[in-house]
């Protein structure tokens, strides 16, 4: 079983922000496309370590994690099996899984 760990603060940026690459260099779109999707594709499990950054905004988090369903075709169930998010902040953890579940529902109901 292959496991890949991505530390956002050291592997990507201490200042993640924004949804699309068009508005900034450390966007959710770029992190998902260049880091998270390749890691999920080539490993059995991916651990994303969230701590160590200055903060997160909802645009970044939704585009990164909700975007896995929207753009990469994963289901929430598949992500629960393959993806682990690590943080000391329970609210951050809950927010990410909320975006995943909301997008999963949206995709299943054909609302997107």
């Amino acid at each position: 079983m292959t496991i890949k760990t991505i530390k956002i603060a050291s592997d990507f940026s201490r200042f993640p922000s924004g949804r699309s690459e068009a508005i900034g260099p450390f966007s959710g779109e770029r992190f998902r496309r260049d880091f998270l999707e390749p890691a999920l594709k080539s490993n059995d499990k991916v651990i994303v370590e969230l701590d160590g950054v200055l903060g997160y905004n909802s645009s970044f988090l939704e585009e990164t994690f909700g975007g896995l369903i929207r753009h990469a075709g994963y289901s929430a169930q598949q992500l629960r099996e393959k993806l682990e998010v690590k943080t000391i902040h329970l609210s951050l953890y809950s927010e990410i899984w909320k975006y995943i579940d909301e997008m999963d529902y949206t995709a299943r109901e054909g609302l997107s």
Partner: protein
Amino acid sequence: MVHPAVISVPRNLDIFMSHEEVSRCLFQIPALVNVNTSIILDFEKVRFVSPVGALPLAAAIQAARGSGKCEVTGTYPSDRSVERILSEAGFFSLLGVSERMPPRKRAVGSWIRHLTGDTAQGEVVELLKDQVFGDSQTEGDAISDIYAGVTEAINNAVEHAYIEKGGYAISSDFVRSRWWVNGLIDRSRRSFTFVVCDLGIGIPRTVRAKMESSGLSHWATYVNDPSRKDSDLLLEALAMGGSRTELPWRGKGLRQVREVVDKLGGRLRIASNFAGCSYSRGSFSVQDFSTPVTGTVVEWTVPLDAVVPRQVSK
């Protein structure tokens, strides 16, 4: 040769306290730039300066200078304490006027000079933090909360504020997607104020533009109702948490702007187009302006003790 025009800066440089006077002053700047007239800002009468007045003025000055069409300079105020504040807020260096007062080592108020950019840059929150607290330890969760709110306001400026051509009278590359940030630590009131502004089309006009292009007839009907004021649309956007695009996963940004004061306490105020809105302790109050604000100004005032441990901020 055209003589420069003199604009008198209002006595209270605060967009909420003296809205009409400040907005009229701000409006004159792009109007003069468009006719290639240089400007002298007369600070003689100014007696009070707040971050929420200083930042839109700094933005208008930089936009005017960035247009390359004119010069902008200014006079010293007659009130020495105001001169010190303008100096600390960075106005004289912005206007190319020499600073006559040395910076104070320890002051009741510490200004964060305006910072600007045109992409979603989270680094600005670290710069803001460093300017105020230096190497002191701030409360980690508080900075995360501020980061979420400030960066969402910046993202809104970059992504949505300039969607309509000609949104600002000075249509230069310098202004497009641009945001500004400043702030003030007030140790006597034990508060931390920070402001984000842009010179875009404003939240109410953004909501209208997005709804008209969304194809959602019920929203188009809502926003095009002539009885619907800018304050209704601003409140709608802020209370509901977003710009109501047709995409269900969008529109979470304004909720995070609001959550800063839900988590840290204090007050949020937004001025945009013909509307002002204040939010504190879960309650909103709105204001209708007769002179519009160019773009959007977002101001948070939070208790200093929620951001930095008391012994550090003494």
